[in-house]
């Protein structure tokens, strides 16, 4: 079975592509975040930051983070419409 990155040259090229792909994802996040942090309901940035910290920094399981934050976020959206 061929494992990605095994071949020396392909591995190098892939490392560059991977670095670029991560950059693109960051750009997607920034584009999504811009309107959210500008206006909308004021709790949204806090929810986004909480989801980020829970998953990225604390490394809690996604189902757990989702099960806690989604209902709170939906409830806040309901109240503040």
């Amino acid at each position, binding site marked *: 079975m061929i494992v990605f990155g095994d071949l020396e040259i392909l591995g190098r090229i892939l490392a560059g592509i991977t*670095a670029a792909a991560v950059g693109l994802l960051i750009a997607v996040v920034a584009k999504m975040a811009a309107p959210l942090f500008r206006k909308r309901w004021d709790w949204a940035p806090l*929810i986004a930051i909480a989801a980020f910290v829970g998953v990225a920094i604390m490394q809690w399981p996604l189902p757990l983070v989702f099960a806690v934050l989604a209902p709170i976020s939906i409830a806040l959206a309901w109240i503040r419409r």
Partner: protein
Amino acid sequence: MNENPLIPLFGYFALLSLFAVGGANAAIPEMHRIAVDVMHWMSDRQFADSFAIAQISPGPNVIIVTLIGYHVAGLAGAAVATVAMCGPTCVFAFLVARTWDRFKEARWRIAIQAGLVPVSLGLIGASAFVLARSADHNIYAALITAVTAIVAFATRVNPLWLFAVGGVLGLSGWL
């Protein structure tokens, strides 16, 4: 890994598919946690490469799941992981689509949609963070990531060009 890996492969991805609000890219930290940290199916680097291959390939980003499955258990693994990730969601979407459409104006539906947006955003942000830590092992890789992010944010250049530039820079061997 002496037991059949197809069973955890199916279980993890079937569960994950139900929480992947915001698409496959929102579920990447969880995939990373399972595939790299918990099950030790692949290295950090292999995970990041799988993400990149899924991004540059035509078709949906969810094929990162197919690549992980393939890595773990060949073609059978690829098939099992893909079905597990897409199957439950497809059934769910099929069942709720009509109801969802009918309540387009309903306050609860608007609240659900508005409420899930920031959660998805935070999760995709976490994906970017986890991937950057997996992929950028030195200053050159981090630079490529940073410059690509700025260019992609500020311009409308076709992403394929950015991949091409990244690939050529990678060929230099600095990464």
